[in-house]
């Protein structure tokens, strides 16, 4: 199959099907309702299940149930809807269930607006729900990448028995770009017999798989927390992904930017290069785990004089960039919120001010 022109939202829906996920529960919300629109038509064609829940809270527990039964399952939502799902996500993480959540972010807080934003960075990477857990979070910068990350999310969720999030923004969802689906990214679901609920009564099985998040004995819960931590540590070792742009030049300024914002920054990097100012960029493709070492090393580059976290939020990823740079360089923030996407010209002006 060659390239097709698709909206990011539609490509995410198609990618999930091609990844072998035939269960989708959702509740519509702008700017990602096209995923539900697309899958309500497509899933029945391939023998899958589309179900619109009565609320996002209900959807999160439908996901929990399907995942506990060993099914590949996913949902999509946008910022306020993800907040409503956060309770279920905590239970899913506590129960060590694989599931995929897509957040096509819009401006906030509260109902905020419907235009693109990256305002949920801290929520996604640090604390999406109560308890002590992390999601593996991937941030696409194009429709093609949104499709690829969606396909990769399912095996990763199964590898760690942990929820995985695709953190996109309204523009990634609404924009159309050519996309090619790589069917070699399709994976077989892992064997879930060891833990999934198996209907032992009806199938004559003697193995009873109990899935729970309640551990009243503090010693047992502590052990459980250590087991979870070991998974997040392993993600740090094995799953960090990033793209380095113009990093072999004598860059004076290092930009760290992800998603749609990184596209704007890339144009700025190209234009500034043409003017004679070298700027490097690290684009995290995973925001948890964060490419801490790559950002730290790039900031220590011999000609580097300043680092900037450029994001469509009020300095959220900035905290991860500061943590990575460890005080070796001044770390600045530039961005806009509320659905405003900074233009290349605005980024250029800001970067020039740092290079002066």
């Amino acid at each position, binding site marked *: 199959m060659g*390239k097709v*022109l698709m909206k990011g939202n539609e490509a995410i829906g198609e990618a999930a099907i091609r990844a072998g996920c035939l269960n989708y529960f959702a509740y519509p919300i*702008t*700017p990602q309702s096209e995923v539900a629109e697309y899958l309500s038509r497509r899933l029945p064609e391939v023998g899958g299940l589309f179900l619109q829940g009565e609320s996002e809270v209900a959807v999160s527990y439908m996901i929990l149930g399907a995942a506990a039964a060993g099914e590949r399952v996913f949902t999509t939502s946008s910022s306020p809807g993800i907040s409503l799902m956060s309770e279920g996500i905590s239970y899913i993480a506590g129960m060590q269930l694989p599931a995929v959540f897509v957040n096509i972010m819009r401006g906030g807080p509260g109902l905020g607006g*419907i*235009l693109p934003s990256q305002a949920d960075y801290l929520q996604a990477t640090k604390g999406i729900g109560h308890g002590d857990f992390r999601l593996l979070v991937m941030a696409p910068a194009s429709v093609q990448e949104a499709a690829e990350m969606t396909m990769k999310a399912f095996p990763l969720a199964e590898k760690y028995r942990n929820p995985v999030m695709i953190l996109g923004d*309204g*523009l990634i969802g*609404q*924009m*159309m*770009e*050519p996309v090619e689906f790589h069917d070699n990214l399709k994976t077989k679901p892992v064997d879930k017999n060891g833990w999934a609920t198996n209907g032992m009564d009806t199938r004559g099985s003697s193995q009873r798989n109990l899935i729970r998040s309640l551990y009243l004995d503090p010693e047992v819960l502590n052990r459980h927390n250590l087991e979870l931590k070991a998974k997040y540590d392993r993600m740090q070792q094995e799953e960090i992904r990033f793209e380095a742009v113009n990093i072999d030049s004598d860059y004076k300024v290092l930009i760290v930017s992800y998603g*749609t914002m990184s*596209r*704007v920054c*890339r*144009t*700025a990097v*190209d234009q500034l290069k043409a003017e004679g100012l070298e700027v490097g960029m690290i684009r995290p493709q995973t925001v948890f785990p964060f490419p801490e070492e790559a950002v730290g090393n790039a900031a220590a580059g011999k000609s580097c004089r300043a680092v900037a976290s450029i994001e469509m939020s009020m300095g959220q990823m900035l905290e991860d960039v500061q943590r990575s740079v460890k005080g070796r360089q001044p770390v600045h923030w530039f961005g806009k919120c509320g*659905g405003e*996407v900074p*233009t*290349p*010209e605005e980024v250029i002006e800001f970067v020039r001010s740092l290079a002066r």
Partner: protein
Amino acid sequence: MQSEVMFAGFGGQGILLSAKILAHAAMEDGLEVAWVPSYGPEMRGGTAYCTVVISDRLIGSPIIRNPMHLVAMNRPSLEKFAPLVKPNGVILVNSTLISIESGRDDVDELRVPVNDIAVRLGNVRSANIVALAAFVARAGVVKMETLRHCVKEEFATKEKLIPLNMAAVEEGEKAAAK
């Protein structure tokens, strides 16, 4: 080489569709392309606009402040976006609905009565295709042949609309040649 085309008009004038057909044609021509709609809170009959970015290499920012070209289907769109167009770009003006001029002397202003032409062809709803074809014929951002193919493909499921829209392409192309 990158060019950006902004389509703008009333909601219902087929702005998003004509932009999508152009994006499809660019993809078929082997170019990189991004179709970026305005999806803000708009009322029915309000302004709709959409930008298509076409490039021979990876597209950076899909957010464009100054497009290379503009296809203005109504007066508010022309007033709002004409000042943003880059010098030497093409501004297509739907002269059936727009009596004023762009006010720019550094662009190629192409005035085509696209609604009148569409009505003459039998359906005013093909005005967007007339405009698209006239624009492509003048600006040359994709091949005319590819455009014809993509218009046909767009209406493949509504076959009886194909002759009307192919006629719209022909008339649009002719109008641009005058």
